[in-house]
């Protein structure tokens, strides 16, 4: 089948000739056949002709959780990948946030197989340690060969410094990517929100910025000693941005990400004790927001992520202390980023990061496999519960003003709009 995009404005700053030009794009057998000012439909074609249509390379998210296997009530792989595709994401890295956790090659194969028929590519992470127990290294090499793109005990800080040292040393010959969640759990104690004015006022136990920065400082020292590739997911403080910037100046092999909600909200939204705002790392302050946005713009922070974490209502509609952490974010990602940044920066952010995980990077040009996101960047609206496609509806952005609409995505011969 042919797919013909009519009069689509191309947003691709890597391609100066086509960037911000309106073109017709013909996709034949999953490949971009022609890009031209006017292409007449030929044979049996699906014609996509939407007012103010924009097109970019397919978007990428480095931190997504679903639930299957084990937590299908939160999200299944099928509906999760559909949600991703409809929200513009054509490739995602899947967190090992399931039960059982993926700690062997057969678990990785299961995930890859479950995702096969779907538009959005699923790139799973394996756990760093068996059962994510934090003690014995899992079979990292075997999982890597099965398709794991990194190793992560999901949101469990590596308490044992020597374990991180060994993981970084062991993974070097097969170029494994090691994750370390930035939290010193002793300093964080029983904290559930950012430590600051709001936590003091609300009597909620605080997680000091210190707990994140201390762990990152430790991790960077270990990385400097041991070598290897380190990824620090979802940083949230000014101090963390500074630490990463220093490490990058030294040429260390470290990347980090930030969650969109940590750019958008501060802990002041917690006044009503709404457990939907309970996220890890916690929402912090205005100055943290600003430093994170700046870090993202200047490249200190490598990727922006939704840190999409479906949590069913039973785990959210409880006392704040007892609620689970996390928010879904795929559906609102573009609308929020497009409010925070100009459209070109937004698209640049959403297409950045595949290389780190060795996920094939798409091209928007003749002859390339189609890997495209379709959107329009101008409509302003309030993000509604009905905009959520996820099985779980825990979304911090409901009620936020967003800008732009995502129509969907195309990969090869698959179209979801």
């Amino acid at each position, binding site marked *: 089948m042919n797919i013909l995009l009519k009069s689509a404005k191309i947003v691709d700053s890597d391609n100066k000739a086509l960037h911000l030009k309106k073109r017709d794009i013909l996709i034949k057998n999953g490949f971009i056949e022609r890009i031209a000012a006017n292409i007449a439909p030929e044979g049996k074609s699906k014609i996509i002709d939407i007012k103010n249509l924009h097109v970019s390379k397919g978007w990428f998210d480095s931190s997504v959780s679903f639930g299957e296997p084990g937590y299908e009530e939160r999200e299944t792989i099928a509906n999760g990948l559909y949600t991703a595709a409809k929200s513009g994401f054509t490739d995602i890295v899947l967190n090992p946030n399931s039960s059982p956790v993926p700690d062997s090659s057969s678990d990785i194969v299961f995930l890859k197989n479950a995702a096969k028929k779907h538009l959005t590519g699923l790139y799973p992470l394996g756990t760093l340690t068996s059962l994510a127990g934090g003690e014995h290294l899992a079979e990292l090499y075997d999982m890597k060969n099965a398709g794991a793109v990194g190793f992560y005990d999901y949101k469990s800080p590596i308490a044992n410094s020597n374990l991180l040292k060994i993981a970084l040393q062991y993974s070097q010959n097969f170029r494994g990517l090691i994750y370390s969640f930035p939290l010193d759990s002793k300093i964080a104690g029983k904290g559930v929100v950012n*430590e600051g004015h709001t936590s*003091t006022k609300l*009597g*909620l136990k605080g997680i000091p910025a210190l707990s994140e920065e201390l762990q990152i400082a430790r991790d960077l020292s270990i990385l400097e000693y041991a070598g290897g590739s380190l990824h620090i997911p979802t940083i949230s403080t000014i101090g963390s941005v500074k630490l990463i910037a220093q490490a990058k100046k030294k040429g260390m092999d470290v990347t980090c990400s930030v969650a969109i909600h940590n750019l958008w909200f501060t802990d002041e939204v917690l006044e009503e004790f709404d457990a939907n705002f309970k996220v890890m790392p916690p929402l912090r302050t205005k100055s943290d927001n600003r430093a994170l946005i700046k870090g993202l713009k200047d490249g200190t922070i490598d990727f922006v992520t939704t840190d999409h974490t479906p949590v069913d209502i039973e785990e959210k509609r409880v006392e704040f202390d007892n609620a689970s952490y996390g928010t879904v974010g795929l559906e609102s990602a573009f609308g929020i980023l497009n409010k925070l940044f100009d459209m070109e920066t937004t698209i640049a952010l959403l297409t950045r990061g595949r290389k780190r995980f060795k996920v094939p990077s798409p091209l928007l040009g003749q002859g390339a496999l189609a890997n495209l996101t379709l959107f329009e960047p101008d409509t302003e609206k309030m993000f509604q519960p009905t905009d959520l496609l996820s099985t779980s509806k825990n979304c911090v952005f409901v009620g936020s003003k967003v800008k732009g609409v995502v129509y969907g995505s195309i990969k090869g011969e698959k179209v979801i709009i």
Partner: protein
Amino acid sequence: MSELSVRHLLGIKYLNEADIELIFETADNFKEVINRPIKKVPSLRDITIANIFFESSTRTKLSFELAEKRLSADVINFSASQSSVKKGETLIDTVNNILSMKVDMVVMRHPNPGAGIFLSKHVEAAIINAGDGAHEHPTQALLDSYSIREKLGDVAGKKVVIVGDILHSRVALSNIFALKLQGAQVKVCGPGTLLPKYIESLGVEVETDLRTALDWCDVANMLRIQKERLDISYFPTTREYTQQFGVNKALLDDLDKEIVIMHPGPINRGVEITSDVADSKQSIILNQVENGVAIRMAVMYLLASKIK
């Protein structure tokens, strides 16, 4: 007709000055009532109140229950340890089960901050927070301010120091909000480990030397050291705590003026304050307890009038 600006009493920070004044005026009337030979009034005769305590309490529960009975309300009591709640029933279900027996008002103590606020968004009844984790304990703060007013004539302009474990204390937090709202000056004093790092953002000053704090203040509110609540060691021994933050008679007598001593109870005699201080003329600890009943009657009376 004067009425409260709120439907629930979830915390002092949700009240305004006029609310506090109204509660105090109403409490004045009830204080007169409870000192009569017949201490009961029919004000809440058709109101049913559930006291739901997810955390153990003796005096607060007694005080509420007495206040309810003096107002002729129908009273039911529900005590649940956290463990039974963990068996599966959610807070909303527990409370809705009780409410379906036609209950109008809930007095709740709960170990989690914000539990009352959470509940108020999901159930119909009027909620009185009788302590939610380290968040608020509004009736305690009201009775404390009321007792200061009774003793010193006014709260505005008075200097109050709160001494002890500020980090884990809902009493401290509610007192800070109440005292600031009424125009008092507030300092907190205690070991650095038990002072929240950002406490000054609430408009209070930190003083880590007890003697300096006592020299400054008109009122010292001595909080209980709740050893059972401290999950790690914030100071080496209670003996050493007492050496630095305990008040004894010699210390009081050495001050230039006579300050008022308060304590929310139960007292660890010899830890926060010595017996001779607790039993001295300067102590208004038992007045606080008596005023607690009047204040709770006032709060329930005023909230019930909003139900009708």
